[in-house]
């Protein structure tokens, strides 16, 4: 190859790389238009948060993780919303439930506008529920144990919708309330909503409009909807931007809020420039017992011995670096609205554990994910377990493999960490009620080889009890029995600290069942 040929080849290569980059990387998504507004001027408050790709924020296309769902919910409103203390009226200004618990009537706010200027109608509400039954969204609350429960939907008048369900159920108001309302005029002609990724189809009636999205950059830009029917948006623009190191980005002012790592807390504590907000402890680890594969675990004395042999405070100090609280043996964590503080507790006591084991020795394999924290937990458990005669061997696999092995009940002990501990107390049934299918719910897996008639009965009763106080009493009792039995052992629930600069924006708030301040729309709205 001659010199001139080589140079030509090189130049050709460089040009190709540059052209490829300009045409592909730089492609800007289509812009959305804001009906009847002139949003281009004077938006003083822009909040930037850590980005990352969580999918196209339509109810059908976002990724099955919290951040994806939260972005979608900025665009789409629901009949009810999660408030600081419980469900609050939203698109529905009021609702009523028939005495038999089968009819739910919602009265809609009038003059609610879609982002394209159309008016939201009761027809849209009916359409949304029916469309979701046919085309399930990523987050689908319209199934109980995998089965649909809506019998029919009637439009009473232009502002009232009545939903009839197949049987009374205490979780239905929550399930109906959080369903996103989508515009009929956009979706009625779409047969495969999963594949819709045009910004101009992303018309909701929520407080924000998505104006930019870049999947490969992991960047989103939301602009406040000028004609929003509800509380005034306090943040004019929310931008989710790619971040390499959140702490560096926060300190340089590139983003406005971070979850501060446990070891960096002191950097911000006592500094007037910053404010820290502690999250409720709704993410946690639990230890699963497979009593079928390891029948020794069916002995309650063995489970109690294990509970006494775990030094939860040590785990919190060494693994969570202090940013956690001991989990409740009754499952519902300390910050849950229906947490029972009077459950049976198991203090760290090796002598008691030995006595309960009564000179027995056990060989157990603990299934964990190949994660540093889980490995540390396993190591600490192993040390204390050895002192009471339990030989623990950790088996580390990647997260997906672990999930599959737990699902297939291919484990003896399994350590699982997940969120959602603040959800409706029906999570007790999903975790402990063997009467339901084993795959019925998030983060649950019914305990193999365990069944307790009292727990099962209460699980069923609370589900059909419509009186809140009576149901709450049942949940309290259920937690007590669960804590006595410990069919699975919750270890600890993590707390997170969000740090931000209050001079710039101080509206962050936690809703009653979620630990992430940036994931609820109330954080961006006037209260």
């Amino acid at each position, binding site marked *: 190859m001659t010199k001139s040929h080589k140079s030509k080849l090189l130049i050709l290569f460089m040009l190709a790389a540059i052209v490829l980059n300009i045409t592909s990387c*730089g492609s800007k998504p289509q812009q959305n238009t804001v009906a009847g507004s002139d949003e281009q001027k004077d938006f003083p408050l822009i909040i930037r948060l850590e980005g990352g790709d969580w999918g196209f924020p339509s109810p059908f296309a976002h990724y099955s993780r919290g951040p994806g769902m939260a972005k979608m919910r900025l665009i789409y409103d629901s009949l009810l919303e999660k408030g600081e203390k419980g469900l609050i009226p939203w698109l529905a200004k009021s609702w009523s439930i028939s005495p038999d618990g089968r009819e739910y009537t919602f009265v809609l706010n009038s003059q609610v506008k879609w982002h394209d200027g159309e008016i939201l109608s009761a027809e849209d509400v009916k359409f949304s529920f029916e469309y979701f039954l046919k085309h399930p969204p990523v987050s689908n609350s319209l199934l109980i144990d995998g089965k649909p429960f809506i019998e029919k939907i009637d439009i009473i008048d232009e502002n009232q919708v009545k939903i009839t369900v197949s049987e009374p159920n205490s979780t239905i108001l929550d399930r109906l309330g959080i369903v996103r309302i989508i515009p009929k005029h956009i979706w009625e002609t779409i047969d495969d909503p999963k594949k819709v990724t045009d910004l101009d189809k992303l018309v909701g009636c929520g407080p924000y409009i998505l104006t930019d999205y870049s999947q490969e*950059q992991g960047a989103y830009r939301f602009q406040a909807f000028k004609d929003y029917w509800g509380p005034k948006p306090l943040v004019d623009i929310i931008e989710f931007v790619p971040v390499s190191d959140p702490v560096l980005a926060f300190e340089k002012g590139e983003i406005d809020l971070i979850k501060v790592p446990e070891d960096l807390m002191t950097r911000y504590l006592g500094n007037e420039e910053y404010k820290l907000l502690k999250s409720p402890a709704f993410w946690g680890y639990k230890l699963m017992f497979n009593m079928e594969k390891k029948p020794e675990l069916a002995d309650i004395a063995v489970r109690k011995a294990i509970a006494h042999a775990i030094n939860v405070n040590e785990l919190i100090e060494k693994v969570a670096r202090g940013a956690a609280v001991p989990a409740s043996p009754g499952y519902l964590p300390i910050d849950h609205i229906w947490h029972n503080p009077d459950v049976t507790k198991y203090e760290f006591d090796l002598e008691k554990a030995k006595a309960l084991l009564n000179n027995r020795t056990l060989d157990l394999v603990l299934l964990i994910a190949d994660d540093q924290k889980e490995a540390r937990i396993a190591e600490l458990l192993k040390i204390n377990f050895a002192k009471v005669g339990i030989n623990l061997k950790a088996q580390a696999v990647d997260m997906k493999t672990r999930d599959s092995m737990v699902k297939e009940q291919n484990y003896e002990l399994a350590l699982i960490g997940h*969120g959602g501990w603040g959800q409706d107390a029906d999570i007790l049934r999903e975790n402990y009620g063997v009467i339901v299918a084993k795959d019925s719910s998030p983060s649950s897996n019914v305990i193999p080889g365990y069944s307790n008639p009292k727990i099962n009965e209460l699980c069923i009763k609370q589900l059909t009890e419509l009186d809140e106080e009576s149901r709450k009493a049942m949940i309290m009792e259920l937690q007590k029995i669960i804590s006595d039995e410990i069919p699975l052992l919750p270890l600890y629930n993590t707390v997170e600290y969000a740090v931000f600069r209050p001079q710039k924006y101080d509206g962050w708030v936690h809703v009653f069942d979620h630990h992430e301040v940036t994931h609820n729309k109330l954080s961006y709205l006037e209260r």
Partner: protein
Amino acid sequence: MVYRKILKLLMTFFVIITLNFCLPRLMPGDPFYFLSSEQGEITISYSDEEIQRQRAYYGLDKPIMVQYGRYLKSMAKGDLGYSIYFNNDVWTIIKNRIPWSISLVFLSMIIGGFFGIILGCLSAWQRNGLLDKILYSTMVFVSEIPPFLIGILFLFYLAAHWGLFPLSGGMTPFADYASWTDRIFDIAYHGILPVITLGVVQMGDFFLISRSSMIAVMNKDYMTTARAKGIATCRILFRHALSNAALPIITRMFNGLGQAVGGTVLVENVFNYPGLGLLMRQAVLVRDYPLIQGIFLTITLFVLIMNFMADIVYKKFDPRIV
């Protein structure tokens, strides 16, 4: 002869796409099971009925041979499928990321190659001299440092401490560029640190290869002849010696380009750069079969193309190679 080569290439390709189909499915785990989540994250789980519906939607409920048949049919039509987790066409996802990865590797190779080869030649020329000793030990050190560590150092000092470069990303988010030159400048500005990071590591490799290759060539008789003829040192080094020492360097270069797709994952991770390496990691973590297949296929094609180009270039440099 040509037919046999083509047949061989097709057979290789067929074996590869079959492996691409089998490998993701051999991994334990399931794309639809979500029991656990990263700390602080909430995940959405599905009931058996929902999982069955999703499997049917993606055609994963069919027997494996039917799935394989469909896969081959789609491949023949150039359809790489639809990503389960990322909810987008696999080719769209890949093609939006390829330019970033290729630019990153290509530019870092030019920088690393340029300096590595020149310094390698000088080091070989001054073999056992002070310059050689300093360069050699420095380059051995540099080539052994993991790229992410160099990246983190750059990030902390050049980007965060001195504010000379952006902290992350491939371009300014939501920027409204006045012209193409602005866009090029912005992309280049964001690419400098990742490119230099990879370039530094590559420089060490190129230095070591070109040094050892040059040392072998320097001892040849024709080099003595060249020196005896009084040819300028620079011309001897870079014209006569380097062209004879080029083959191992070319091999390294094309190997490096072949790894463009997956080889940059650590640097992409440090700078949150939108390349294919990070995407591949995510696809494997969530068991996104169609996307894993698509990325593996892209990698395979890239390696094959680079090997093919290396063969052509070899022949140009050394006519003895058939």
